[in-house]
């Protein structure tokens, strides 16, 4: 479906993307994560033709979107703030999108606007930050485009509306469409995403189906008997998330390591549910401060 092939992009002399490659498959929700300034928004902008890549290409069903702009009728980008639409009323936005996107579903749009109790005849400028995001996400989803790109969709949205918004995103995915969400709300992606792409140093080397990730990576709480086995803990595929006294919370990436752990002198080993945030902290080399 949407294929991103070895994208390179330099901005102000800094290589933001250095060969990002992945594919979005129909019927899936993909989370795009990475630390601040890793190029998530730049990547989104490349996928919609706002920026031109220095190298590489973005194709939808084999057609380069930077050469054939009309294929973008099937790609919609919802930025983290709908500033460009602030002069319009919500209704006018619906009318404008109806003219631009041939599959725009006006009834669906008005239904969602009603569901979120958004004022159809008021200007976008008058909405609160959270309401703006609800509205622009609804507008993007109503295009019925096959590829929907959401940049921080839950930005400023309150807890109740967030729940509704996530439900809306999930129910919007059809077997023919896919959604790419760039978000720093890892707990939300954990709930709704099928796969995850980690953007690091301009590359997308870590791509996982969340289900596979949970099978592959184990989160364990271990209490060692006679102090920790430092040799075992210092291995590359072991990441210590937390240590309180003799209690270690670790992530492991291989079965062999798990077998070797069993040979250690332990008082207790307990398997915990892996959260995306744990894995992210490990792979991004930070403390979970992401955006």
């Amino acid at each position, binding site marked *: 479906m949407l294929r991103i092939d070895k994208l390179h*992009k330099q901005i102000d002399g800094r290589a933001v993307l250095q060969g990002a490659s992945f594919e979005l498959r129909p019927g899936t929700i993909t989370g795009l994560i990475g630390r601040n300034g890793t190029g998530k928004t730049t990547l989104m902008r490349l996928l*919609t033709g706002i*920026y031109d890549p220095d190298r590489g290409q973005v194709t939808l069903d084999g057609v380069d979107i930077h050469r054939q702009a009309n294929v973008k009728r099937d*790609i919609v980008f919802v*930025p983290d703030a709908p*500033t460009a639409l602030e002069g319009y009323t919500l209704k006018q936005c619906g009318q404008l999108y109806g*003219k631009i996107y041939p599959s725009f579903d006006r009834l669906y749009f008005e239904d969602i606007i009603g569901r979120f109790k958004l004022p159809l005849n008021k200007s976008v400028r008058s909405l609160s930050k959270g309401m703006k995001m609800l509205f622009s996400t609804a507008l993007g989803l109503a295009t019925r485009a096959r590829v929907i790109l959401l940049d921080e969709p839950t930005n400023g949205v309150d807890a109740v509306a967030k729940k509704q918004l996530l439900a809306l995103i999930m129910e919007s995915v059809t077997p023919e469409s896919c959604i790419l969400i760039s978000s720093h709300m890892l707990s939300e992606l954990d709930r709704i995403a099928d796969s995850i792409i980690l953007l690091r140093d301009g590359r997308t080397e870590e791509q996982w189906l969340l289900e596979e990730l949970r099978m592959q990576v184990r989160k364990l709480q271990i209490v060692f008997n006679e102090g920790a086995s430092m040799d075992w803990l210092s291995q590359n595929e072991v990441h210590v998330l937390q240590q309180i006294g003799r209690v270690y919370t670790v992530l492991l990436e291989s079965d062999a390591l798990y077998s070797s752990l069993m040979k250690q002198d332990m008082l207790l080993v307990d398997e915990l549910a892996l959260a995306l945030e744990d894995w992210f902290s490990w792979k991004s080399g930070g403390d979970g401060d992401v955006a």
Partner: protein
Amino acid sequence: MWRNFFNTGLWSKEFRQVRFMLYAILGLGFITLPLVRMNRWWFAEQRHISNSVENIIMNPDYEPWLYDIMNLQILMLVMGTILAIWQIGSERRANMQEFTLSLPYSRVHIYTVKWLLGVAFLLGSFFLSTAVDASVICTSELAPFVEWGGYASALLRALLINLALYTFVLAVGTMCGSVISQLSFLGILILMPEFIRLMFDRFCWAFDIPTLKKETTIEGMVYYTSKAPKVPTPDRWLFYDAGSEEINAWFWGATIAIIVVCYVLGLFLYVRNEAENNGKLVIFPSLETILRGGFTICFALLGASIATSLFTNGPVPYSLGFLAALVIGYLMIRKLTKLKLKI
């Protein structure tokens, strides 16, 4: 293809972005031409109207209807410039351009729609204003004196000049990163020919190179002309006197050529638009290098010129001023090109 080209989505979006300009152009156009004519030939006291008629009869070369078209031409030059800045420069702020470029339209399509919309605004308001104006003339005591061929020719000439400036400003906007830089570049480009001439004179003066050439007429009269190259200055062309007799095929050809060249150049640059550099002085790194070099040299020439004015005139003050301004100019432009305005 053509059905797709006239897709209402992009036209609606572009129209909405500048619709206030249409109202302004129409309103001000009406005030500048037909309303003035009405006040002079409809609503004025009869003795004033009779005076005006007498004035025309006494001065066969006096063609007041043409000078009023000149006023409309000047107004439209200003309005066309604002329109072009609004369409391109202003769009680069607040993620407006990001929205436009994310839509399913090619950049050729987007730029052409912008240009066509601007042309339609200018054409429409010109014709509307002059249609009302012509109606006023026809129903007034001015009617028997008007030479309609000349009226139409002056209108067409004013229209072409306006379209050329509008297309030029739009093209300038495709390489500038903000409203401020688009305005600055417009000013610089318009003043550049005069600046070059002035700097040439100053240089010759400082190095004692004679700039005046002695010439003699057939009758034996001696006169002096400047050796400085005669660069055509844009103001003469922009404010071309509507009643001027000098109008010729060269004018029509050059003006149409400017429109075509500026449109093609604008299109060429817009297709290569680097939205990631919005907010900068220029959005293309290659042009940034040219800008740095050009600005530094111009600043150095200006510095040299100021030095010869402040101190004594001669090669030494000129050269010292040149060198000092060269360094200052380079540091200034280096700082300016690194700035990214987020307005």
